[in-house]
């Protein structure tokens, strides 16, 4: 492995457990690093993480930097920024990836601001390619791809002149590849000195609220959008989900309208899902929404407008009013089952 220019992943731990999104990013980092012919490094701040660190190696990490300090057990911005900036300056990675969690979105921008480098939020794809800027060719740089502006456009962002190139990615966007227990990587422990002045925040209370909505693990999702028109009509979508033993999903518009809780939101700023069956009811199919569900195995779209973009990615399309179609669907299912 090269000593510099590697692809680095900030690995988030919560109560000593590595976050799922960090493993997904390690898998993507491995793919990017193979393309660039460099190594993958993990930056893992925490306390007593040597055991957990081993699983990172199995996903293809060549070097795990375990940054060990009692004050890093719970995330707070100043100590985390300090240890990450120091590590990046020492290791000089060309790319650093962060999960777009509340932690990653709190930390990434601080590091970018400190190092005066770019950071692109909520990427839905990462690729390697060339870029020409004022007559100068930059080879093998990171294309940071994300929908923007209410989903009307897809922007490819680059930051060719500054290293590292940094991006955040939501949980579920990058695919997990199977672990390889035989992979050989190194785990090193770093013991930073953190001055008392960095501890300006004190955690008084942490309350876990169990997730009652499990979109990521659902085999079937019935999702509703603006086309539902009202909270009452949205209940039809919930009834269909209930009948099929499915999870309820929603577009951002339906969440913003207050018909359904944000925990149900599918899309770029919600959850990315890959169910066996996705039934989109009254969802026009903005690019942000599609970014979160386009890889579903089967998609049924129900919409009054035959021109809706959702029909372009659906496998089955029904043009009609959900007040007719959804009850007919429920009735048909109850009769056959």
């Amino acid at each position: 492995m090269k000593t510099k220019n590697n692809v680095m992943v900030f690995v988030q731990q919560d109560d000593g457990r590595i976050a799922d999104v960090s493993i997904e990013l390690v898998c993507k980092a491995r793919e990017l690093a193979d393309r660039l012919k460099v190594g993958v490094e993990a930056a893992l701040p925490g306390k007593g993480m040597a055991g957990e660190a081993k699983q990172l190696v199995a996903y293809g990490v060549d070097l795990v930097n375990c940054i060990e300090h009692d004050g890093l057990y719970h995330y707070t911005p100043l100590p985390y920024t300090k240890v990450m900036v120091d590590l990046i300056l020492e290791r000089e990675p060309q790319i650093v990836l962060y999960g777009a969690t509340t932690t990653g979105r709190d930390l990434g921008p601080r590091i970018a601001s400190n190092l005066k480098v770019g950071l692109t939020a909520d990427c839905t794809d990462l690729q390697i390619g060339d870029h020409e800027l004022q007559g100068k060719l930059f080879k093998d740089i990171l294309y940071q791809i994300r929908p923007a502006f209410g989903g009307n456009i897809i922007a490819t962002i680059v930051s060719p002149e500054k290293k590292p190139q940094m991006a955040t990615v939501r949980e579920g966007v990058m695919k997990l590849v199977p672990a390889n227990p035989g992979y050989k990587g190194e785990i090193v422990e770093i013991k930073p000195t953190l001055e008392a002045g960095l501890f300006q925040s004190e955690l008084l209370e942490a309350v876990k609220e169990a997730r009652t909505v499990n979109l990521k693990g659902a085999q079937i999702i019935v999702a509703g959008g603006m086309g539902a028109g009202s909270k009452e009509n949205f209940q039809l979508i919930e009834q269909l989900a209930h009948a099929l033993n499915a999870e309820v999903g929603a577009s951002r518009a339906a969440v913003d309208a207050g018909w359904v809780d944000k925990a149900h939101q599918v899309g770029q700023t919600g959850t990315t899902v890959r169910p066996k069956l996705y039934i989109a009811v009254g969802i026009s199919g903005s690019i942000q929404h599609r970014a979160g569900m386009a890889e579903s195995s089967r998609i049924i779209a129900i919409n009054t407008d035959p021109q809706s973009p959702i029909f372009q990615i659906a496998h089955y399309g029904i043009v009609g009013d959900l007040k007719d179609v959804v009850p007919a669907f429920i009735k048909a299912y109850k009769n056959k089952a």
Partner: protein
Amino acid sequence: MGLNIVVLVKQVPDTKNVTGKAMKDDGTVNRAALPAIFNPEDLHALEAALTVKDQVPGSRVNVITMGPPSATQVLKDSLYRGADFVALISDRKFAGADTLATSYALKCAIEKIGNVDLVFCGRQAIDGDTAQVGPQTAEKLGMNQVTCVSAFTKLDAKARTIAVRRSLESGYEVVRAKLPVLLTFTDEGFAPRPSSARRVMMYKNASAAPTAEASYDDCYMNASACKDNEIIALWDIASIKADPESCGLAGSPTKVKKIDSVVLTAQDIRMIDNSESAIGSLVHELIADHTIG
């Protein structure tokens, strides 16, 4: 002893209420088709600041925004709701700023105000959803931060600490931070108070004298005509002592390589009639291949 609070606000295109074609034929965003509004979460940040002012007598609420002359509308709105001082940061040299260059300009403006105890802003703006400018500004100020705040649990102005509730994916945490600190707010708490009729009468003609008709995108006014006694302060790059190399396009490490309008490639789709019998046979088919059980 009151607290000195700065609220960072942004005028944004209302991406949720697209009124016309959002894209021009040349592939650029047609901002004229999008009405401009006060970024929703920033209104909650302003309300949080006004709440502090209600609790701690003698506090001062300063509101600043960076943008074109038309952005004075969000400053007027802030005055109507109770802000003590408002400033527009506007200069052609700020055009093309990404989040890093924006945070640098905001840091310079906050330092111009000076002796700041609290900096408040919305968690993110609806036109970019990046949630980066708050933390980036805090880092540039060398200030601690707490993001995604939905409530205050205790503000102790004497001890100079504030305890806040922070929303997380799987619950929440209560964090006590020393002042000074930057807080970003979600829309879960601090429902914005309405404009005060008395203040609307007082400030409805407030202006920074921006007269030129300006397009939203790139027309940044010349602030040299600014007078100190105007209600809306107008600060250009020189008045906030910003280094031009760190502003606008020059200070932005991220570049847009390309913008693609969304073109969908249609795949094979089977259209199902919306009759009960057609829906019935679709359901039957899905059961037969074990898609639904």
